[in-house]
């Protein structure tokens, strides 16, 4: 029986010729990742282990991104714990203030993941790297601790859903709209325990940034991982960012999928997720006026350079509406610098937006844009759960950077096409 792309990568990392859905395996890891929230817990767990050596100092990455620059004393203690651990173990890939970025934008940018890799990260959005044709999935801190020491993790081999993408997205439709559409279609547990494998000739019409965004939110459908085939665009990206050799795996022609969905990208419209679940999606134009108090453009989902370009295109020569706070957060230092060179930062500031150093900050209600009771935010982030960005009586609406920027200008959730 044929294997899916994910199953082939897992089989290779478990030293097996074949794996089947449901089989329990132990796989070798190419990268073990953690951040300033999850790593301290993992470091404490590691202290309980007999063996306290990291398996490979080049294959453990600690990225300080959630609450830094430190938002309070406890966050400072957590980062100090990570920093000392990284020093003690001589970790090659430790990223702190000045070098850091939001982990899931930074890891591909630094070339730490390439096609064919198997990666775990103590952060649910670790599934992002499927865009490069790697198997990557989120785990908890104890799994991270075990991975740091053994270089291995246990997995139940997932079955898969296939999403056959056709056509070309329209003017204001991005990867965010594609994944919100899919989550709206299958629900927040529609891919529970499963892989989401994206195929079809529409893939070539999606930029690498679009693919990162799509894989990033696989977890929001309950998925174990999301994965794209490795095409010329992916190869070009890896050559630009990494010196590591990559391995291309392809699904067998007779691979089994639990379900196959065909999605015509040209038929999609800008899509918004209403509170308080990512599956509560509505196409723009199908709902009435929704005023917003804040717009956030950033995060591991949508803080990449093409996201900032899309937002700047709309904000150029316009002003953020009176009474709306617009917060722009480039995801990495390189993206920040590139945006500066392209004049995007100037555009944001002239429009009345603020620009922050890279941080996960407001996405999870940490800091840098917390909502009060009754406030509403249009956000390019990934979750709109109760209390996610602040008070339990606040609301988060998820959308693309273009929609968030247009909404910042009009003061209500808006299609960028309204401003043309």
């Amino acid at each position, binding site marked *: 029986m044929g294997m899916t792309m994910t199953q082939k990568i897992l089989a290779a990392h478990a030293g097996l010729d074949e794996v089947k859905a449901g089989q329990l395996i132990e796989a070798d890891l190419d990268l073990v990742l953690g951040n300033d929230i999850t790593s301290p*817990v993992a470091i404490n767990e590691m202290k309980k282990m007999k063996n306290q050596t990291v398996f490979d100092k080049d294959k453990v990455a600690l990225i300080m991104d959630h609450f830094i620059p430190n938002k309070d004393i406890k966050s400072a203690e957590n980062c100090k714990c990570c920093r000392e651990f990284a020093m003690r173990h001589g970790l090659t890939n430790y990223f702190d203030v000045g070098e850091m970025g939001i982990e899931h934008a930074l890891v591909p940018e630094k070339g730490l993941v390439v096609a064919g890799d198997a990666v775990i990260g103590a952060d649910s959005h670790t599934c992002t790297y499927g865009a490069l044709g790697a198997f990557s999935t989120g785990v908890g801190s*104890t799994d991270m601790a075990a991975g740091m020491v053994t270089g291995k993790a246990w997995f139940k081999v997932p079955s898969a859903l296939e999403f056959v993408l056709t056509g070309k997205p329209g003017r204001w439709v991005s990867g965010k709209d594609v994944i919100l559409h899919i989550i709206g279609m299958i629900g927040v547990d529609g891919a529970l325990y499963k892989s989401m494998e994206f195929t079809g000739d529409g893939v070539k019409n999606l930029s690498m940034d679009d693919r990162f965004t799509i894989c990033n939110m696989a977890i929001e459908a309950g998925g174990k991982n999301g994965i794209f085939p490795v095409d010329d665009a992916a190869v070009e990206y890896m050559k630009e960012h990494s010196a590591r050799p990559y391995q291309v795996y392809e699904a067998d022609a007779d691979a089994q999928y639990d379900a196959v969905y065909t999605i015509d990208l040209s038929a999609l419209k800008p899509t918004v997720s209403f509170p308080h679940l990512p599956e509560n999606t509505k196409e723009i134009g199908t709902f009435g006026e929704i005023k917003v108090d804040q717009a956030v453009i950033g995060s591991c989902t949508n803080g990449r350079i093409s996201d900032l370009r899309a937002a700047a295109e709309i904000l150029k020569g316009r002003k953020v509406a009176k009474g709306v706070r617009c917060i722009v957060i480039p995801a990495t230092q390189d993206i920040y610098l590139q945006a500066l060179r392209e004049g995007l930062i100037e555009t944001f500031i002239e429009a009345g937006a603020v620009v922050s150093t890279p941080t996960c900050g407001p996405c999870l*209600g*940490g800091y840098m844009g917390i909502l009060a009771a009754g406030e509403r935010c249009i956000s390019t982030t990934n979750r709109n759960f*109760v*209390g996610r960005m602040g008070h339990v009586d606040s609301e988060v609406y998820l959308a693309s950077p273009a929609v968030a920027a247009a909404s910042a200008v009009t003061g209500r959730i808006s299609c960028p096409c309204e401003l043309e």
Partner: protein
Amino acid sequence: MKANGSVFKYGDNVDTDVIIPARYLNATEGAELAKHCMEDIDRDFVGKVRPGDIIVAKKNFGCGSSREHAPLAIKCAGVSCVIAETFARIFYRNAINIGLPIIECREASERIDGGDQVEIDFDSGVITNVTKGESYQGQAFPPFMQGIISAGGLVSYINAK
């Protein structure tokens, strides 16, 4: 191994942000996290929960973030077991890895109400609703996962290898 307690009942998609809001994630100790467990979905939970009590929910319990702080907060609040129709996959792994017993059982998830007295036999997977006089068959763990739980979590399991 058995559990016995009073039930706190919740619905579908109980996410990790309501189990332990991110504003408390600057803490790592279970006892500190437990003080805020379920705060954004049930303000009364922390005041009412007694050692041994059981959480019963519907689909996709623990969806969202990978924070191990979520099962840790539940465990340290004194909860002896979480029963749900399904669990989000990272929460499922985390619960096993830190030694918080969880059981998937659709019937129990549908039939059990808040306040019911429930007993769970982890060896057989049988869930007994003392209040209603009913029992339900929960899904037992595969031997590999049972091995991790029996060892007391992933760290002990690896140490024993």
